[in-house]
C-alpha cells in the first residue's frame, strides 16, 4: 500500500507566512508554537512547565493573606513542619501554626478542587461533544445548593453528632449525587445521547433552582446570608480533613479517567456512531465516565460551595495551549484548574485585605478576561 492514490487538491499547500513584518512575525511565532505544542515532546514540556509554575505559585501563595509574611518565612514553616523541628520561640510557633493549619490546607484545597473541577469539565465537554458544557451541566450545582440550603434552614445547629457545617456537606453531597444518579439512570434506560443528557440537566437545574429559591424566600436574614455565602464558593476555613478527602478521591478517580483517554478521544472527535465502529462501547463509557465526573464535582463542591468558572474555562485554556488530545488535555487541564484557583484565592485574600473575597467570585473575575484574551489572540494568530 505504498502507491499514492489520485488526490488532486492535496497538492495545495497551506498558506506559508511569506512576509515577515511585525504581524507576520507574530503569526509565524504563533504557528511555530502551535506546531511545537502539538508534538508529544512539546506537550510534555508544556505540561512539565505547568507543574513547575503551579508549584512555585502555590508556595508563593502561602505568603499572602491578612497577615502577610515573607516567602522565606513560609518556606521555613514548611520545612520545620515536614522535619518535625520545634519553633525557636512562641511568635515563630504561631507563625508555623498559621502557615501549616490555615494557609497550606487552603492552598492545597484550591489546587485539588481546581484540578477535580477541571477534570470533570474535560470529561463533560468531551463526552457530550460540546465545548460549552461544564461540570454543572447535569444540574449538580443547583442540586448541591438545595441540599446545603436545606441543611442550613432545617438542621442548623449541631445535630446527631455532626456539626452544622458537616450537615451542610452531607446535604449538598446527598442531593447532588441522588439527582445525578436519577439523571444517569433515566439516560441509561431511555437515551444517553448528548442532547438528551443536556436537556435532562436543564430540567434538574430548573427544579432545584426553584426549590432553593423557595427555601430562601422563607428563610430569615441570617439564614439567607449563610445560604448565599455557600453558593459563592470558597476555600475559607479549609481543613486538612477536607484536603485529604478531596485529594484521596481525586487521585483514586484520575487514573481511571486517564486510562480511558483513547475512548474519550473516539467519542469526542468521531461521534457516537463512528466511535462504536472504532470498537468503543459508547453508552457504558459515557455513563461511567460521567458518573466519575459527577462524584468528583459533587464531593468537591460539597466542601467548597459552588466554584463556577474553573470547570468550564480550564479545559479551554489547556486546549488552546496543547490541543484537544485527551491523553494530554486531561492532566494539563487539571494543572491549569489547580493553578487558576490558587491564583484566584491569593488575589481574593489580598486585594481587599483584611476582607477575603470568595474564590468562586475571583475565579470568574480573573478567568473570564484571560479566557477572552486567549480566544482573541488565537483568532488573530490564525486569521
Amino acid at each position: 500500500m505504498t502507491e499514492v492514490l489520485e488526490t488532486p487538491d492535496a497538492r495545495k499547500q497551506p498558506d506559508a507566512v511569506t512576509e515577515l513584518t511585525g504581524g507576520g512575525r507574530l503569526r509565524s511565532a504563533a504557528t511555530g508554537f502551535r506546531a511545537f505544542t502539538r508534538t508529544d515532546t512539546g506537550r510534555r514540556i508544556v505540561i512539565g512547565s505547568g507543574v513547575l509554575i503551579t508549584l512555585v505559585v502555590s508556595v508563593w501563595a502561602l505568603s499572602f493573606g491578612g497577615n502577610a509574611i515573607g516567602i522565606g518565612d513560609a518556606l521555613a514553616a514548611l520545612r520545620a513542619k515536614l522535619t518535625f523541628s520545634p519553633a525557636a520561640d512562641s511568635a515563630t510557633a504561631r507563625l508555623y501554626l498559621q502557615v501549616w493549619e490555615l494557609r497550606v490546607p487552603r492552598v492545597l484545597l484550591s489546587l485539588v478542587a481546581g484540578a477535580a473541577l477541571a477534570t470533570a469539565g474535560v470529561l463533560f465537554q468531551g463526552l457530550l461533544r460540546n465545548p460549552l458544557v461544564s461540570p454543572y451541566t447535569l444540574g449538580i450545582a443547583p442540586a448541591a445548593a438545595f441540599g446545603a440550603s436545606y441543611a442550613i434552614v432545617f438542621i442548623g445547629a449541631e445535630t446527631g453528632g455532626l456539626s452544622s457545617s458537616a450537615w451542610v456537606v452531607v446535604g449538598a453531597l446527598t442531593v447532588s449525587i441522588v439527582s445525578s444518579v436519577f439523571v444517569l439512570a433515566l439516560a441509561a434506560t431511555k437515551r444517553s445521547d448528548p442532547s438528551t443528557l443536556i436537556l435532562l440537566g436543564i430540567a434538574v437545574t430548573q427544579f432545584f433552582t426553584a426549590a432553593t429559591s423557595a427555601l430562601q424566600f422563607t428563610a430569615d436574614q441570617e439564614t439567607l446570608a449563610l445560604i448565599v455565602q455557600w453558593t459563592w464558593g470558597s476555600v475559607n476555613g479549609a481543613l486538612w480533613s477536607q484536603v485529604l478527602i478531596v485529594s484521596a478521591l481525586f487521585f483514586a478517580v484520575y487514573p481511571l479517567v486517564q486510562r480511558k483517554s483513547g475512548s474519550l478521544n473516539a467519542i469526542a472527535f468521531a461521534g457516537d456512531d463512528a466511535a462504536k465502529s472504532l470498537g468503543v462501547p459508547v453508552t457504558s463509557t459515557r455513563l461511567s465516565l460521567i458518573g466519575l465526573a459527577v462524584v468528583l464535582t459533587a464531593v468537591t463542591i460539597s466542601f467548597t460551595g459552588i466554584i463556577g468558572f474553573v470547570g468550564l474555562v480550564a479545559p479551554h485554556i489547556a486546549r488552546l495551549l496543547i490541543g484537544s488530545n485527551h491523553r494530554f488535555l486531561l492532566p494539563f487541564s487539571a494543572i491549569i484548574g489547580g493553578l487558576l484557583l490558587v491564583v484566584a484565592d491569593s488575589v481574593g485574600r489580598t486585594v481587599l485585605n483584611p476582607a477575603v473575597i470568595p474564590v468562586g467570585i475571583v475565579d470568574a473575575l480573573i478567568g473570564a478576561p484571560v479566557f477572552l484574551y486567549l480566544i482573541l489572540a488565537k483568532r488573530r494568530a490564525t486569521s
Partner: protein
Amino acid sequence: MTLRITDLHFGYGRRKILHGVDLTAHKGELLGLLGPNGSGKSTVLKNIARIHTPTSGSFRWDETVALEDLSRRELARLVAYVPQTIDVSFELDVREAIVLGRTPHFAGRPTAEDWDHVDRAIELLGLGPLVGRSVTELSGGQAQRVLIARSLAQQPSILLLDEPTSALDIKYQLQTLRLARQITRTAQVAAIIAIHDLSQAARYCDRIAFLQDGHVLAVGTPEDVLTAERIEQMYGIEVSIIHANGSVQVIPRDEPDSAVALEAATAAA
C-alpha cells in the same frame, strides 16, 4: 473471501426497517447499495458495523468468522465504517484524527507501529500537506479523505462507506468514488458503499444491490440491474438508460417536460 449477510432483520421498537436482507460482498469488490430515501441503505451498513444491533440475522466473513460472536473491539479490527461527514466541535490535527482509526488496535496510547500505519494512510491519500492543520479548517472533500484515511489506518478487511458523497460537490464526489474503488483494489477489502447517484454507482461499483422498504429487490452488475422499468418501479420516475464511455448512464426523462408544463401552466394563469 466474502462477507455473507443472511436474513438480516432490524427495527426501532415496533417499526421494522429491514425485512430479511441477504447480501454478499467479495474481497477486492466495491458493492453499491442503492435505493430511495428510507429504503434501509445506511441501516444495513450500521448493522454490519454493530452501530445498530440487529433483531436477527447472521454475518459471516470468509464463511468461518461469525461477526456477531466477535467483541466490539475485535469487530472494529475487521470492519471500518466511514460516515458521511466529519462532525467535530474541537480543534483536532489531521494526524490525530487519523490515529483514531487505531483505537481498536492499541491499549492506552498509540505505539510506534500505530503511527506507522497512520503515516502510510497519509501517504497513500496524499494528505501530507494537510498534516499540520485542524480538521475543522478542511474543505468537505479534504475532510472526506481524512475519514477514508482513518478507516485505512484501521486495517479493515471490510470497508463500509455511508453516503460519503452526499455533502460534496461534483468534483469531490467523483474523487471520493475513484478513491473508494482504488482502495478496494489496492487494500483488497470487501467494500460496500451506500450511494444515491445511479450513474455514478454504475460507473464506479462492480456490483449493485437495490434496496426498497428494507428488502433487497435486485443484485447484479450495473448493466443487469439498472433498467428503466426497475428505476420507475422504485423511484416513480421515467428514465432513459444509455451506454456511454463504457458505463451505464441514467437520464431522468420527466424533469424537462415538467418544467415545460409548469411554464405553460404559469403562462395560462
